[in-house]
């Protein structure tokens, strides 16, 4: 039982990272139906910005986190403006290919600027372990930080989407872009803000991963990016609570697969899950089945 609880804790930690990245995927998809494959790389850039802030400017965790989120928000807007906006009326496949291009561009640019080798992320918090159940279950303070910061950011996002003007505009654009425009909503600005918010969340994920694993490298966004995409589809792409649910479930499932089966199967299980969901319920766990009207 204690082993199961320990595995669950391991899984939730991993899952909160997926959830943070999945939120960005889901928001962008919800608004302009674009799968932003560069999103995982924004996550990587976020980790590097925090790394630079901490190493060279000697900042603490919170300022580094905020600077990294702001930087990536701007980066997200920039990517949207130069890579996606000119293609907004092109076929869906063109935008997808551009997204892959942006992804490769960011990966290689970072390898050029920072070197291809992995770097050690500085220790920003003093590691502390808490022992539960007579020492059989261990939780460390970084796992707690990871979970708390993830939940706080999700609550903030929920607040923005539900209670602010820009959130209202986002929801309107996601329902019908043309109708929203007719109602006087500035669609371009709204899309821009969506990229900004999604990218800021990915940056936060990157910083937290750097903090948790102490390791960052220019390709660190590739696999988590794919996994977060699966998480977003799993929960129902375009649905914010779905991304959270998908992220946490994927983290826990992966951990249980490697904890009770073999670590070699966990990626296979993640991708098998994606295929299964696409066959059984293409709209995802929380998605509604909308009938196409003819």
């Amino acid at each position, binding site marked *: 039982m204690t082993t199961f609880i*320990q595995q669950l804790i*391991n899984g939730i930690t991993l899952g909160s990272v997926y959830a943070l990245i999945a939120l960005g995927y889901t928001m962008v998809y919800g608004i302009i139906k674009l799968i932003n494959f560069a999103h995982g790389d924004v996550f990587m850039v976020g980790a590097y910005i925090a790394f630079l802030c901490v190493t060279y400017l000697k900042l603490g965790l919170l300022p580094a986190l905020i600077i990294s989120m702001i930087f990536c928000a701007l980066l997200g807007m920039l990517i949207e403006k130069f890579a996606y906006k000119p293609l907004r009326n092109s076929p869906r496949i063109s935008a997808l290919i551009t997204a892959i291009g942006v992804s490769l561009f960011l990966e290689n640019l970072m390898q050029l600027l920072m*070197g291809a080798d992995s770097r050690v992320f500085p220790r920003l918090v003093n590691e502390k372990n808490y022992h539960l159940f007579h020492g059989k279950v*261990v939780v460390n303070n970084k796992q707690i930080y990871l979970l708390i910061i993830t939940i706080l950011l999700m609550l903030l996002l929920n607040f923005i989407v539900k209670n602010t003007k820009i959130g209202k505009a986002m929801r309107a654009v996601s329902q019908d872009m043309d109708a929203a425009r007719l109602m006087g909503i500035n669609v371009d600005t709204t899309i821009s803000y969506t990229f900004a918010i999604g990218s800021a969340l990915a940056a936060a994920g990157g910083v937290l991963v750097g903090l948790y*694993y102490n390791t960052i490298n220019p390709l660190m966004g590739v696999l988590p990016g794919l996994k977060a995409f699966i998480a977003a589809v799993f929960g129902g792409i375009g649905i914010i609570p779905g991304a959270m649910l998908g992220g946490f479930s994927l983290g826990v499932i992966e951990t249980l697969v*490697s*904890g009770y089966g073999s670590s070699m199967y966990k990626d296979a299980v993640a991708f098998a899950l994606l295929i299964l969901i696409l066959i059984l319920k293409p709209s995802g766990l929380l998605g509604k089945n909308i009938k196409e009207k003819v």
Partner: protein
Amino acid sequence: MSFAASKTIKIGVNLELSQAVAQYGQKELQGIKLAIDEINQKGGVGGKKIELVVVDNKSDKTEALNVATRLAVRDKVLAILGPATSGATKSAASAAMKYKVPIISPSATDDTVTVDERTGKTKAYVFRTCFNDSFQGNVMANFALKTLKVKKAAIIYDASSDYSKGLSKNFKQTFTKGGGKIVAEEAFARGEQDFSSILTKIKNKKPDVIFAPVYYDEAGLIIKQARELGMSIPILGGDGFDDPKVVAKAGKKYADNVFFSAHYSSQDTDSKVQEFIKKFKKKYNTEPNAFAALGYDLGYFIADALKRANLKFDSIAKDRERLKTAIENTKNFVGVTGIVNINKNHNAEKSAVIIELKNGVQMFKQKLNP
């Protein structure tokens, strides 16, 4: 310009200079360059300077083969130094055999690098200047049984790495033969960062020791995550642990009670070792690790073979053949990492050292001869 008329002797370098295990390749390149610069300053070999043609294989097996082919065919090098890792060297070996150009790895330790798995025959053009994994696996298993006096071991290995698979197999053989028991054997795939779930599983089986024959990136993470889960048992590894990043990633506090086999220790008081450290520091302003030392030795090793090869510069194929014979006949070559004798399987017979990490500091523990 014909081959005979060229003023330099071209030697290819095929190393992991970027991506996953860049640290090994970069350190080895620094070592090789230091050695070749020294040799060239003293006039080179037979009046000709050695010219290095350096190409990055991006820590990728397929790329390592492409690089070897390019060096052999387009750049027309006499021999190729590298790659650093076993998988990449095995892949490059097929180009060496096809184009009959000798390749020498400074650090590929997997047994099947120089010997064909199926036929058991030595690959004619493939050499290494380090010990192999049968030796390294033996050393660590015996160290666990005799020095640490433990009976139950858990193994964590990288299923996508020939080095990791080979080393865990050799450790397992010697450890079980010596009366030990393997209580858990867990594999992971390249690029893994989260080991907490497999470590939790291992913790449940209550081993006395963990053997993790992995590269430095994973080594640091495994040590750290094991300690965070409250496992304080000794963690053993191979020469892949010999990098400052292991301590940086695990943290000083956690990089304790860790033991690994290595090619050399900077604490060795041998004058040749200390002189090398001084020269390396002067040139690069950092401490050399074992890979830098292996690279440095390889530079002198190839120069030594070139000197003995009696090159005629009539045809590149013939000169490659002369060089290959000279490498095969290397006896008592004295390097920083020990005395090298090339045996019939094209392996270097030499000693290993065991290094302990104590609060993040490398301590020389013992030296073992073949």
